[in-house]
């Protein structure tokens, strides 16, 4: 184990995978400028700067992936993916199916998002659910440096296009990261804290918000389980269902808006497959249906906060007492 931040963990994952497999390459806006260590280790063929042109970066990743390379494309900020949607959604996500399985698209699209840096709505937009809704794609959004490394290695080795979102507020937070062959399989959630009274379900930065809320709830005598989804597609249904069958109550927390978001999907899943175990309606605590603000005060109000989650947890349990369950 060694202590490093998420950016360093990603760098380690990239270096290890590029060392392991000569087909892995990385390109994007400033990749060769910012990742000098990779450039020196693997040369300008495999570590490339690109024009500021997200459409062709994504299309090039898809074309290269389908013909034998395993690209990692850095598109910087998630809202820039709007220019890259055709390459990701129409090409990488669909051409395997539409060709009757003739092609594979082993590629990773890396982008940052999330509040905390006051960059405003055209650099911060949690659009991860858009890609969950698109067939053929996988979606990852880690919360710890260890997961940034392990999930990136798994994403590079996967034969499908993987959207890898970095919550930018987590980029410089240190954490313990295992050395060497540390793989976190796609599609496996992590139980960050065990509990019995209610389940807090989240991913990325708000996992830490949920852990803080769980601390607060413990002070009130309530035991909250905290689940970190890690991969949004495929979703780890088994871990979610097992937890909610145990606790009977669930709160989903994410910074992305509520409408048609991951929380809505989790609510539907629990309603469809664990209805009998639910003691209370599912609660969602999310960012508002508004563009992400840049003012510090507004941005803090935009992001889910521990106190609101803890209060919602208390309300859920008290509701039980009121209705006599």
């Amino acid at each position, binding site marked *: 184990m060694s202590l490093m931040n998420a950016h360093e963990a990603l760098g380690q994952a990239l270096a290890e995978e590029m060392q392991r497999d000569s087909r892995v390459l990385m390109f994007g806006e400033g990749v060769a400028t910012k990742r000098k260590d990779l450039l020196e280790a693997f040369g300008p063929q495999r570590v490339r700067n690109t024009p500021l042109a997200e459409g062709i970066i994504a299309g090039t990743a898809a074309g290269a992936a389908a013909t034998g390379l395993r690209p990692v494309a850095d598109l910087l900020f998630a809202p820039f993916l709007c220019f890259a949607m055709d390459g990701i959604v129409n090409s990488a996500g669909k051409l395997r199916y539409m060709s*009757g399985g003739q092609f594979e698209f082993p590629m990773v699209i890396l982008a940052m998002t999330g509040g905390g840096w006051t960059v405003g709505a055209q650099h911060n937009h949690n659009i991860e659910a858009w890609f969950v809704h698109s067939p*053929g794609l996988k979606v990852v959004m880690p919360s710890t440096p260890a997961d940034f490394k392990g999930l990136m290695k798994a994403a590079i080795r996967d034969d499908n296009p993987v959207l890898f979102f970095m919550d930018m507020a987590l980029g410089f937070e240190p954490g313990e990261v295992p050395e060497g062959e540390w793989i976190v399989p796609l599609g496996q959630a992590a139980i960050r804290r065990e509990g019995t009274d209610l389940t807090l379900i989240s991913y990325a930065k708000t996992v830490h918000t949920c852990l803080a809320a769980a601390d607060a709830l413990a002070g009130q005598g309530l035991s909250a389980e905290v689940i970190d989804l890690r991969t949004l597609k495929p979703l780890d249904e088994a871990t979610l269902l097992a937890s909610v069958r145990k606790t009977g109550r669930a709160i989903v927390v994410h910074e992305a808006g509520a409408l048609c978001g991951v929380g809505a999907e989790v609510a539907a899943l629990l309603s469809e497959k664990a209805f009998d175990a639910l003691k209370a309606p599912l609660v969602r605590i999310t960012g508002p249906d508004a563009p992400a603000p840049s003012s510090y005060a507004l941005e803090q109000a935009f992001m889910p906060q521990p106190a609101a989650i803890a209060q919602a947890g208390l309300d859920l349990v008290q509701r039980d007492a009121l209705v006599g369950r």
Partner: protein
Amino acid sequence: MSPAMSSASPAPSRLDLLAAMLRIRAYEERIVAFHDEGPFPHVCTSVGQEAAAVGVVSALRPDDQILTNHRSAGHLLARGADPGRLLAEVMGRSTGYCKGKSGTLHISAKELGVILTSTIVGGELSLAPGVALSRSMLGGEGIVVCFFGDGAACEGIFHESLNLASVWNLPVLYVCENNQWQAFVHRKETMTGDHVGPWAAAYGMDHLTVDGNDVEAVLEAATCAAAQVRQTRRPFLLEASTYRQRGHMEPHDQSYVDPAEIEAWLAKDPIDRLSARLLDAGELTPQGLEALRLQAREAMNAAAAFAQASPFPDPSELTTDVYA
């Protein structure tokens, strides 16, 4: 190997070129006939553009790769595709090149090097540099040919693609089939100037505009262009000036097209022009021409029979091939 694929060396005869164009025409006419008979999937035919397809594809080698678009039958047939499997794909049958999961618009045939067909106008332009990057990094002498139209040239991705291919020195032969129409809009409404070829100069890229209805001229230009790309590993833009003789898609509708324009271009029909040349030169008799036409029609009737007799995919195929 198909005759077309092996034809890069030695060069195909003029009769070969004619026969290849007649096959494409007969294929598209068979689809038109299907539409006359009753409901049939929408198809974007390449009638009138056969010389561009045959001329370019005849200049390629087996290890070259082709990216094409929604108007792809000419490229596929010129590359040696089985018309039965093409029609089966159009009709959504399991014997099609994509197991019936593509339909007419997105047919890829990896075994022929016709890959990643996208019907998003400009999609082929977005994918070509990545395919060429694989060729560059994984070795081999093959080049990548990207067919697109004047409509795609007006997409922003045209600029991004040619710019990247140039700054990264990628072996892409861009082939713009300028057929004068962008779906339902004439290119005069959407472009400054008549030609796309000169736009390559902005990317430091060589270019050539050729009479796209003269198959011999296209073959000669494409042979030179492909050789340059092969040798320099740099991109090249070849524009074939041609004409879409039918509406954007079947069922046919050209009510929005000036009849004088259609008449002028029909007088330059690529098949008629080569036929006249061969008849004048004594290389072909009227009877010989009729025999070639009949042969092509019979081949397409057999292809149609194969497709019609082919089964639809099993419903269990609905969710297969989504993930690798």
